[in-house]
């Protein structure tokens, strides 16, 4: 690995040599610009009036900024329908996914049964399967069952997509909750299931939220399965729909950009607030406790 120059920079300036410190800030600022600029460009283009969409101007806030593109995307296109479709399907499938995962994870966390280790390894292995590989049989099976161009097939498929990973996350979290808590409740006469519902689930709210968020982002950002299952424009997911704007690019760059911003801003706010917890949730099972 060739990280030594970076490492040296880091170490030598540990006690704060001014040049090293300035270099650190410089590198970080350049990295921030590289990370943010492409997204700012989208925001910038979305504010431009129609006749200046294709221009070689690089300024972020155009002098003649206007919200026309936003009005156009919300009124003249099917974009609101696509957002609505995505929203209801994503919310409902995430809910089912977390429900299914939370109960299975509890079994994996508290009982020893034959096939437990194999089950966990299987869950891990599912992460290795290329999505494109699963699409072929899913498409053929769905078309035989008449599920193409219906939401039924999609809802069922999406309910399961994030289950393996959610089970891993939740099992890791349940493992940190002492069994004494449930045992105490059961001595007081509660059944096992009541103990789970009344003690373990409330205590696991943070990791349930992480699992929900993970399900949500997986489905919300999915393009592949939706593209295979849905062919009628009014049923589209936003990911498919937004691509139709970008494909006849010359005419709809402004609409594309404002649609992008409409989907991105809420998701990014959600993400920026939760990413810290997301990471701790992901590593709780793999790093020493």
């Amino acid at each position: 690995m060739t990280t030594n120059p970076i490492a040296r920079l880091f170490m030598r300036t540990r006690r704060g040599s001014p040049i090293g410190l300035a270099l650190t800030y410089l590198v970080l600022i350049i990295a921030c610009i590289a990370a943010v600029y492409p997204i700012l460009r989208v925001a910038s283009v979305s504010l431009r009036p129609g006749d200046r969409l294709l221009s070689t101007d690089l300024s972020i806030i155009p002098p003649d900024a206007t919200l026309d593109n936003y009005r156009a995307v919300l009124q003249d296109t099917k974009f609101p329908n696509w957002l609505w479709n995505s929203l209801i399907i994503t919310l409902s499938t995430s809910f089912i996914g977390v429900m299914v995962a939370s109960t299975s994870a509890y079994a994996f966390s508290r009982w020893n049964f034959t096939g437990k280790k194999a089950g966990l390894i299987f869950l891990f292995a599912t992460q290795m399967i290329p999505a494109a590989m699963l699409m072929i049989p899913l498409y053929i099976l769905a078309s035989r069952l008449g599920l193409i161009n219906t939401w039924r097939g999609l809802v069922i498929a999406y309910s399961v997509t994030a289950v393996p990973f959610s089970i891993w996350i939740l099992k890791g979290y349940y493992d940190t909750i002492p069994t004494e808590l449930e045992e105490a409740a059961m001595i007081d006469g509660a059944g096992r299931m009541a103990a789970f519902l009344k003690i373990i689930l409330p205590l696991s709210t943070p990791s349930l939220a992480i699992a929900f968020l993970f399900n949500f982002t997986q489905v919300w950002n999915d393009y592949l399965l939706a593209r295979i299952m849905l062919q009628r424009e009014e049923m589209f997911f936003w990911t498919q729909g937004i691509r139709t704007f970008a494909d006849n690019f010359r005419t709809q760059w402004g609409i594309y950009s404002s649609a992008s911003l409409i989907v991105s801003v809420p998701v990014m706010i959600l993400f920026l607030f939760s990413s810290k917890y997301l990471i701790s949730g992901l590593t709780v099972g793999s790093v020493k406790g």
Partner: protein
Amino acid sequence: MSSLTPDFMLRSLGNVGSTILTLLVAVAVLEVALWLVFSKLLHSRHALVIMLLTPAAIGLAALIVYPLLFEIRLAFSNMSIRRFKNPTYGLAQGWDNLKLIFTEPVLKQVKFFPILGRTFLWTFIQVSFHVTLGLGLALLMNRKIRFRGLFRTLLVFPWAVPQIVAILAWRGEFNFQYGYVNILLRGLGVANPPQWLTEPFWNYVAVNIVNIWLGVPFMMVTLLGGLQSIDSTYYEAAEIDGASPSQRFRAVTLPLLKPVMTPVIILGVIWTFNNFNVPYLINQNELETSDILVTALFRAAFEYNRYGFAAALALVIFAILLGLTILYMRVTDFKPVMKAGLSQAAGERRRVAAKAAGGQR
């Protein structure tokens, strides 16, 4: 007037809602049946475990295990758009598919091994850039700096924005004339900037640039988490012993970062190897020279409609991926990590947590 009418909203809500309701009812009926059979009839101690596991097991069996088995069957068929309803199955067909994969072009021009090589190159480039840049940024962020929260927020932008949005925006920016990539290059004095979307070599470069941009934040954040969990006394001890900065990096940072680094590298390799969105969507003109294995697989199945052939190709790709992972687990000592994840650490944590809970009582 917007096309999102109350009528449309209600109709789609009803559509999705009825499916969800059907699913919930089916699960409830199943659970009652399981309870009757295992608890009342067989008096099994494991009734509850079975009830807890069954919904997930059925879901995964129906949507992962069964499709994969079906795919294996498909690999031994000549199913295509013309033979969609009545394909022939047989060992001979499977053998033919296998021969086709290695002797004929996968799509129209490029054969299997060049695509395989390109996929390996792509995986190698991506993971090394992600890890190097991610680790570099994490090391800088781990210093005593001001505005760390602000830097962190800005640096994770590429990860936070929905992937499709970012990819399609980048594709626009690779436009020869109006994209800022070429505007910047021209500003720097490059007279003839590359045609990113049509020249094979530059398209491959473009795909790589976009994915590096997308993948660094995840590495940075996970590795920063790992760095922050390293106790500073290790560094102090090393310093007292007179270790130079690079010695400290090699003797303290890298080994202690390994438990975090090994799993994220494995995940990184798998995710990159399987990455579909970036190579597929950036490659607007469908240049076969930018395809990696999974995008070629998708095109073979859904643009050329050669389902039997594509299924066989999928199995070959999966075998390669499996071999790689096993090899990597052998070379690095991933097993202890995996095992720790499975049982040991969990047990330890539970004991510690139990102690803490006991102490509080």
